[in-house]
């Protein structure tokens, strides 16, 4: 009995959730993904600069967010979703290269996750590696509004 109610509630919740995401535009979704990536680099940057003490859990969580989001990111660009965003037309003209740039960041994040940066100096190096991936994609595929 109790079980059934819970199961029902979960179904309703799921329905509710998918209804909400279905209404979300691809623009809003991918900008949210990038915002979270930015937030994660921010958390790593605070450790790199010494504003926050080294914390393995934060490092792992941030790298995981970057890895997860960047892998899903290239699928958020359906035809016709160029407007009202900072996405450059080159994303559609040169999609394979765009995806390769996303994969590069994904791989670099995964490599770092496999042997987690263990102190402030290692986090500094990690931020440098990731930063180069960010700007090499933004250089061609993002145009400030």
């Amino acid at each position: 009995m109790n079980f059934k109610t819970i199961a029902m509630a979960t179904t309703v919740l799921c329905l509710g959730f998918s209804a909400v995401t279905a209404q979300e535009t691809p623009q809003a979704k991918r900008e949210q993904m990038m915002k979270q990536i930015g937030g994660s680099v921010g958390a790593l940057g605070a450790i790199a600069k010494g504003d926050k003490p080294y914390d393995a859990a934060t490092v792992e969580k941030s790298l995981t967010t970057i890895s997860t989001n960047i892998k899903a990111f290239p699928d958020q660009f359906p035809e016709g979703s160029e407007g009202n965003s900072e996405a450059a037309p080159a994303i559609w003209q040169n999609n394979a290269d765009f995806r390769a740039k996303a994969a590069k960041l994904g791989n670099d994040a995964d490599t770092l996750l496999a042997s987690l940066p263990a102190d402030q100096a290692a986090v500094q190096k990690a931020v440098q590696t990731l930063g180069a991936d960010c700007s090499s994609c933004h250089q061609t595929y993002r145009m400030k509004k």
Partner: protein
Amino acid sequence: MASKSSKILAGLVVLAGVGAATAWALTKPSPRPDADWANLGTPDLVKGEQVIWAGGCVSCHAATGATGEAVKVLSGGRALPSPFGTFHIPNISSDPHAGIGSWTLAQFGNAMTRGVGPEGEHLYPSFPYGSYARMTPADVNNLFGYIKTLPASSNVAPPHELGFPFNIRLAVGGWKLLYFNDKPRVQLANADDKVKRGQYLVEGPGHCGECHTPRDALGGLKTNLWLAGGPNPEGKGSIPNITPGGKVKDWSEADMVNYFQTGFTPDFDSVGGQMAEVQQNLAHLPQADLEAISAYLKAVPAR
């Protein structure tokens, strides 16, 4: 685009109407006196390297797609599209035939600060000498000395593909008459040495205004909107306002320096567009120079 180029044409016709002789007197190439390039002594190669990063020469003159140390081979060959046609960037490596290895300092200096080529011809302002004109002869000497230490390349770039009348170098004389000068872009009362250094770097070698200042229909900078940003000529989007009237008013000097060194904004967005290469170049500059640039950007009039 059509209306833009027809306006430019109209401007040139007016100039032609001034009378051929007067027009020639007003618009002929004007190199600097030879004395400006004499007795500058042995170039300081460390400073010369800094000038090359401040000047961003590699962003245009390195081979397409070059990264890392390879950007120091100034072989040319990149295509630079513009409303007037496509420019093919020349080889300025130390090669004596294909590059500038056999040029004199005066030839190099007049190209950099007057837009005058080695045969006395006008150079196109897509080479941003309209900004480099503010460079000191000492820095030009250091830069030339440093370029000569970089690898030679025998690459020869194809000729520019420009439509009439832009394919006529003489026409550049009209543009220079209207827009070329080597005066400060803004008057800053009570500027201290740090701000003055920043002014030199931004208005001179850094040529930041070439992108961050909007242009009029003839391609001249709207200097009353100095560094105010505007639509991106590369198409979609815009170039940000970097005066205290723009978003950067909330950036501290340290934020700005960090952006130039790492490419990260204070809210951990990452640099993109044409600024990505500029940032990679600026990251080579001494911290004090980046602080000076930041101080100048805080001191210019808000737009």
